[in-house]
């Protein structure tokens, strides 16, 4: 019920929003709100929000506070105005702790006006959502929903009663037919049973007599069990597909897939060290300082991003860090045993192996899982077939020596000792 009501609520909201939009568009001299939005997101969000104070003040109501011409000048180069001694500008500058706003001299008047239009638009939306108007609309919609529900329910009950009546009639008719032909049915049943019984017995007898067949079946059974057992045993300790629930619902699909963030932005260790390393929370904060995903949560902070804030003890309202951080305890997905040494940089930098080769299509994974079996066989199979990336000057000497051994053949990791115990176990 709630779903339906919220759907309808949203529908109503959109409708009213489009109305408002229409209104806004006429108000703002047909400015392009969409372009304004793009510009606002790329240039302003680092420091400004419409509804709340970020680094700079909340922008809602700015068109009431200042006229448009002044705003355009201010946005283009506020410091010039302060320097020129514009009293409003100086006052505003001082009110905001003398924080210097970046000058955007490359923006045209129209573009700035678009931004202003977008802010006004957002302002109107914001005013509507929590204030009386939207609440009333919501209430009206839920009333509608309730009526619809009740009518629907009544219809279903009526339908059900009709079906029951019809079915009862059918049953009664069938019972009458059976009662009329009782004897004939019983005779047919007995005949059928005899035939099945003798057939089965014959088959069983023939099977037991045929020793070869029995032997073959037993052999097959044993072989089947052995294969199954063998496979089970081989997979003891192999956790391919392991997908634990993480403390934060972090989606690689959004970050690496949709947003195309390079793997090494967060997992920089993979290029330098044996550990790819899980990024520390301050790396998350590079973006999530401003990216709050609030458009997906009705203007509220995403609860998952809030977990990052809790970890670094960050208060998004005051934009201050406390001194009680708590590290995020991720669940490790890829667990190599301690006696196996694996170095990411060797594979990523030297061999040029793509992350996806071992970790799978990470950019499509909603929650990360273990893509590869991480068994020694898996390592070795790859070492046997992968050619050495001989662009590296380190291999110069090695190639020379190697060509003496193998004329013209390709050089795999295995050929230069990639299968030796001590390369991974020490």
């Amino acid at each position, binding site marked *: 019920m709630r779903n339906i009501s919220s759907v309808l609520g949203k529908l109503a909201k959109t409708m009213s929003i489009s109305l408002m939009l229409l209104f806004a568009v006429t108000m703002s001299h047909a400015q392009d709100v969409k372009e304004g939005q793009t510009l606002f997101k790329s240039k302003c969000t680092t420091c400004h929000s419409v509804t709340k104070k970020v680094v700079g003040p909340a922008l809602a109501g700015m068109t009431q506070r200042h006229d448009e011409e002044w705003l355009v000048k201010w946005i283009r180069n506020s410091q010039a105005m302060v320097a020129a001694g514009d009293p409003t500008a100086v006052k505003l500058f001082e009110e905001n702790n003398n924080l210097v706003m970046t000058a955007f001299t490359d923006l045209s008047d129209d573009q700035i006006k678009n931004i202003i239009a977008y802010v006004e638009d957002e302002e109107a939306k914001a005013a509507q959502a929590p204030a009386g108007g939207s609440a009333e609309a919501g209430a009206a919609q839920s009333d509608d929903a309730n009526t619809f529900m009740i009518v629907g329910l009544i219809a279903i009950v009526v339908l059900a009663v009709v079906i029951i009546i019809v079915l009862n009639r059918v049953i009664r008719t069938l019972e009458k037919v059976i009662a009329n032909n009782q004897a004939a049915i019983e005779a047919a049943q007995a005949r059928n049973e005899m035939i099945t019984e003798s057939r089965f017995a014959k088959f069983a007898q023939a099977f037991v007599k045929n020793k070869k067949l029995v032997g073959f079946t037993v052999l097959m059974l044993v072989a089947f069990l052995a294969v199954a057992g063998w496979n089970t045993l081989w997979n003891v300790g192999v956790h391919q597909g392991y997908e634990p629930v993480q403390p934060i619902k972090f989606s690689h699909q959004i970050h690496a897939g949709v947003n195309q963030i390079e793997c090494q932005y967060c997992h920089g260790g993979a290029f330098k060290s044996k550990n790819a390393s899980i990024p520390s929370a*301050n790396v998350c904060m590079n973006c999530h300082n401003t990216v709050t995903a609030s458009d997906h949560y009705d203007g509220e902070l995403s609860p998952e991003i809030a977990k990052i804030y809790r970890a670094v003890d960050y208060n998004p309202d005051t934009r201050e860090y406390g001194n009680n951080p708590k*590290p995020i305890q991720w669940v490790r997905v890829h667990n190599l045993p301690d006696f196996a040494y694996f170095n990411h940089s060797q594979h990523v930098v030297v061999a040029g192996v793509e992350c996806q080769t071992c970790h799978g299509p990470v950019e499509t994974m909603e929650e990360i899982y273990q893509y590869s079996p991480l068994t020694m066989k898996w390592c070795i199979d790859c070492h046997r077939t992968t050619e050495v990336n001989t662009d590296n000057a380190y291999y110069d000497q090695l190639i020379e020596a190697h060509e003496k051994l193998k004329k013209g053949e390709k050089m795999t990791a295995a050929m230069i000792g990639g299968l030796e115990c001590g390369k991974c176990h020490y």
Partner: protein
Amino acid sequence: MDSNKKYWKGLEELQQTPAFVNNSKGEFAEPIPVEDVLNEAGLSTKTPRRDFLKALGFGLGAVTLAACNRTPVHKAVPYVIKPEEITPGIPNFYASSFNGQSVLIRTREGRPILVEANPNAVGLVQGTESGTVSSVLDLYDMTNKLQNPQIGGKDVDWSKLDTTVKQALVKANNANKQIALVSRTINSPSTLQAIAKFKESFPTTNLIQFDPISYSGIRKANEQSFGRAVVPAYNFENALVVLSVGADFLGTWLDGEEHTQDYIKNRNYKSLEGGKMSRHIQFEAGMSMTGTNADVRIAVKPSEEGAVLISLYNEVTGSSLPGALTGNPRAATAVKLAAQELLKNKGQAVVVAGANNVDIQLLTNAINAAIGAYGSVIDLDNFSKKYQGSEESFGTFLADASAGRVGAVMFLNSNPLYDYANAQVVKDALAKIDFTLSFADRADETASELDAIAPTSNYLESWGDESSREGYYTIVQPTINPVFNTRQAEQSLLVWSGNIINIFDFVKNVWETQILAGGTKKWKDVLQTGFEYKGKLGAKAYAFTGNVQGAASNIQAYAQSLAGEGFELALYESPAIRDGRFANNAFLQELPDPVSKVTWDNYVALNPKDMEALGLGENSVVAVEGNNYSVELPVLAQPGQALGTASIAVGYGRTKVGKAGNNVGANAYPFATVKNGAIQTTAKVKLSKVSRTYELAQTQTHHTIEGRNIIRETTFAKYLKNPASESGRFADSHKSYDLWNKFESPGHKWVMAVDLNACTGCGACIVACNIENNIPVVGRDEVRRRREMHWLRIDRYYTIEEDGVDYTKEDDIAKLNDFQNVKVVHQPMMCQHCDHAPCETVCPVLATVHSSEGLNHMAYNRCFGTRYCANNCPYKVRRFNWFNYWNDSRFDNYLNNEFTQLVLNPDVTTRSRGVMEKCSMCIQRIQAGKLQAKIESRPLKDGEIKLACAAVCSANALIFGDANDPNSEVSKALRSERIYYVLEEINVQPNIGYMTKVRNTFEA
């Protein structure tokens, strides 16, 4: 060609005692009860059916449960805010300093794990001594260190302690009583500055520097001789003739490791190839590590040391001082020959004497002045500042305290109730002082008797500096936050004197205003380089003005007080435990003594003939009495020990140092006496047999190789004629057949060359190997069972030589009347990484296999412990894990708590029980070095990869590298004519070449 000399590791091997023969046959020291299990009774034991079913059921259940385990949940907890400089998995290095040496501390994820020499520094630039490399373990010695400040043995917080201490200090100061600060030598500019600040607030402060092993005799003698009360610097690289009278200058005397580095420069393979080799003559009582390296070693009694110098002075200068050597013809001849040598090499010769005796040192100065050692070998201008302690000022302090003139005392790095000759005097004096405090990091022998303890932080947790020589300053910077509630002493002094300044700012200020002032270097540069050197001062000319006559008569008088009935006792420092300050370091306790190969104990070293005369044998215990003190200690038959003398190491017998070091051996400090304001480490003692027996944990005959010819030795004269002399190679003399195919090494081929002439046997490599490779310490009992885990050992072999004749036949040896004249060879022995390794052939599970880079790999996880490989190894270098040493409370030497496990190297696995292990040639370092080259896309440079043992060797005796690179140092070294391979004749094709030992003897 083939040397037929008889080499032996211990007297039991020489005399082939039944116990030795028996032990050398079996693989294991203790019989394994195979027969008991397999005999009739063992096999017919009935296992009750129910028990069988229980076991079966349990086994099945356990296995099923184990197999059904869900994926274990491992947490991965990244930093909240990652420090910029840390990349997990990559070590960070910080420059710091220890014991005056500039070192680099390797840290991983914020924890220090290794200390190595700073290669760009001054002085000791390659290698460290065993104490330095093992010092990282002391940081994690958490079960024995104090976690909070204490008053009266109870934990308090710092504010409480500060109030109490301040009150006491103000009281003492107001009463115009002395506030004494008793410390070891302080050469740190910032510590001295902190003390000066402290003195501003408390003017009655008096700094007393006192070192348990003192060199005040040298300082006084230099004052009398040249008007400079300093300990000079000795540049052994300028000495072609070195004569030492009782000075263990390669080990414990002054800067042993630095001396080694310089001394070896005239004796290693490079010097030999240039046709140059220094000559080293040693006169001493006990066999010291330096004595084992001498070309000529003459056993003399401590009472004769002075006479040797008098004779030498007479020979060198042509004068005739009274008190020359009598009754020791061998020594007299040697002195004559030595004097000629010294005179022949004027300006390139030096005489050093070990005794802390002003007269002996004065006479030494006179000889050195005569042979022109000053300005070339001995440098009085760029002097050492490491030892400035004065027994006289400590004596004055004791007198002041007894007279009630001292109001408060603070001990910094000082533990006189343990290491002062007369602890009772100190105890009585302390009773008369109102307030006593120690900065010790643990409640040691002295601290536990005092009113308060203000535990100082470890050097790896502190800011500070050192200045071990004139014009040379090294920085101490922390690599970890203080793990416990400790505060470094300098900070405490500043707090108590009301200077509210953070120690970091304080040290920085001292450097910026004093040390770096006027220079171009900035504080940040120093943090990177680790040191500041003002440059060498030009040597001035010094004229000797000492009173030789007076010195000679004093020497005679002292010698007479020692001579006579009974034994002459010589106290010495063992190269590992030194003065006992770090006696709780399990790595050092288990490091075999370079000469006796004894671990975990001190002992009375006696000449075998003396032992015979006293009716003493193996495992005997004697009571040593003298100087109103007596201890019972086991005896050790020490070939080379002068007849009528006994040697005991100090630094043992501590009672309050911690789990590992408590009650190991007995304290020998009380045998010392203070004479003429200098501590004398010789005494007259009486020995008497005690009925009980005690087995020393001695590794010398473990892993014996049954008299096979594995040492090659020649003389310098023979070497000059034929560089390949005695190397015994017979590569072309017969045809060899291989059971195995030839191993190809197309990429790298890792090999090593060992210069037997450079190895002094100090054992620092063993400790470095232990730390780098997570090798467990097994403890005394396990060493007795021959289960020490050291991957690298240094075998020490004796040969007998008398009157210039090498005795080779056992019958001849039996006829010798003493064991005074022995020669020693040290041979580092580790896995030889044979190309045709016998161990690889016998492993049933292929746990040990050969690599294409010439290494013998060991896959621990594959090994299931048949020990066939150890049995088949001709070099006996494989070690078996009998227990889970890192997780077994019976081996609680250091690894069994959450703190000490932090010292483990994360790049090397800890081995489990039932697994064989051995030298891997630091494969983790090889792999890391190769990877670095690959990442930077360049060929690997020679010398880039350093093995832990080679990196720590100040003598550069271990040369590692790639044999496929014809220009690498090791390739050049392996082309030396001196190279031979141990047991080459069995054609296992080892990859480690040894260079013949060359001695520069007289008779040649």
